[in-house]
């Protein structure tokens, strides 16, 4: 997948609006492979890379269960905690919208605000994926990367 600065800005604008409207502590968009796309909000010392990996694993496992029982799509997951809660949505079957919220919000409000933004988010995702597909046909990698040499790779390992 290829994410341009322009697309990142479009995602970011939706996430910023969602974070404010839902009183969330964190709104985080990642792809189903666990790659981070954009986020809004911050929780002290939270490791977003690990969070993305675990969230994508959770969604993958849940969808795997769905296949076993003949349910094609579990689109929403909700983990209720003592203080913090996690709400996960699969968007456009490509990405995961993860929201962490506490007592300043509620699952109802989060669900409502997510529903209101799903179409806008899906439109950007579909656009990005269409562009990635087109990009794949022309050239998958940025020009600079086509010039990678063995020395460049060896340098990475010091």
């Amino acid at each position, binding site marked *: 997948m290829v994410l341009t600065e322009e697309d990142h800005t479009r995602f970011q604008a939706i996430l910023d609006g969602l974070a404010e409207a839902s009183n969330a502590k964190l709104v985080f968009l990642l792809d189903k492979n666990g790659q981070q796309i954009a986020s809004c909000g911050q929780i002290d010392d939270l490791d977003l*890379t*690990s969070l993305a990996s675990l969230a994508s694993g959770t969604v993958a496992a849940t969808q795997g269960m769905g296949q076993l029982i003949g349910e094609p799509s579990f689109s929403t997951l909700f983990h209720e905690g003592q203080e913090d809660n996690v709400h996960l949505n699969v968007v456009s079957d490509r990405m995961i919208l993860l929201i962490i919220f506490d007592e300043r919000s509620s699952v109802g409000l989060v669900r409502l605000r997510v529903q209101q933004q799903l179409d806008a988010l899906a439109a950007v995702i579909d656009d990005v994926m269409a562009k990635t597909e087109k990009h794949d046909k022309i050239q998958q990698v940025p020009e*600079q*990367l086509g010039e990678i040499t063995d020395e460049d790779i060896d340098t990475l390992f010091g």
Partner: protein
Amino acid sequence: MTFINYAAREINCKIVYYGPGLCGKTTNIQWIHERARKEAKGKLISLATETDRTLFFDFMPIELGTIRGFRTRFHLYTVPGQVFYDASRRLILKGVDGVVFVADSQELRHDANIESIQNLRENLAEHGYEIDTMPYILQLNKRDLPSALPVEQLERDLRFKDEPIIEAVATTGKGVFDTLKAVIKQVLIDLKSR
């Protein structure tokens, strides 16, 4: 699927360590985590059973530096090796850019290696990947054990293309970084050639 993030100027790739149960996949990742530079590595996440067998996956991110202005980040995953966790193994292969097959050199595990490579082939195919054309390294682990089969025999039975073979003793770190380096090199060359 390599993720190229122009906004953050990053390339993110996914590498999966595959192989039969108790072959040393987690030990590889643990060694890398212990020895990698602090600023280069992220947390090691292990979803394991109470007896320390991998239940779902181990995960650690590693950042190796900048190449042509792009930060290179690699997400390392292991799969659970036990036969009955096949559904989990299949999930973890989604979006993979390169595979390390960790073979257990012991004679008693020879059939398990062969079965696991076949399982890898099938699970990759489920995602539309072709093992014969993707970045792939064969690591022969546990070379220090007296019951280890000769390299020539393992090569004959397990190697199916011109993949690099690396001898290793993951508990002491022998061959661990060489394996990582080899797979990363293949992934980047594959990326470049697309």
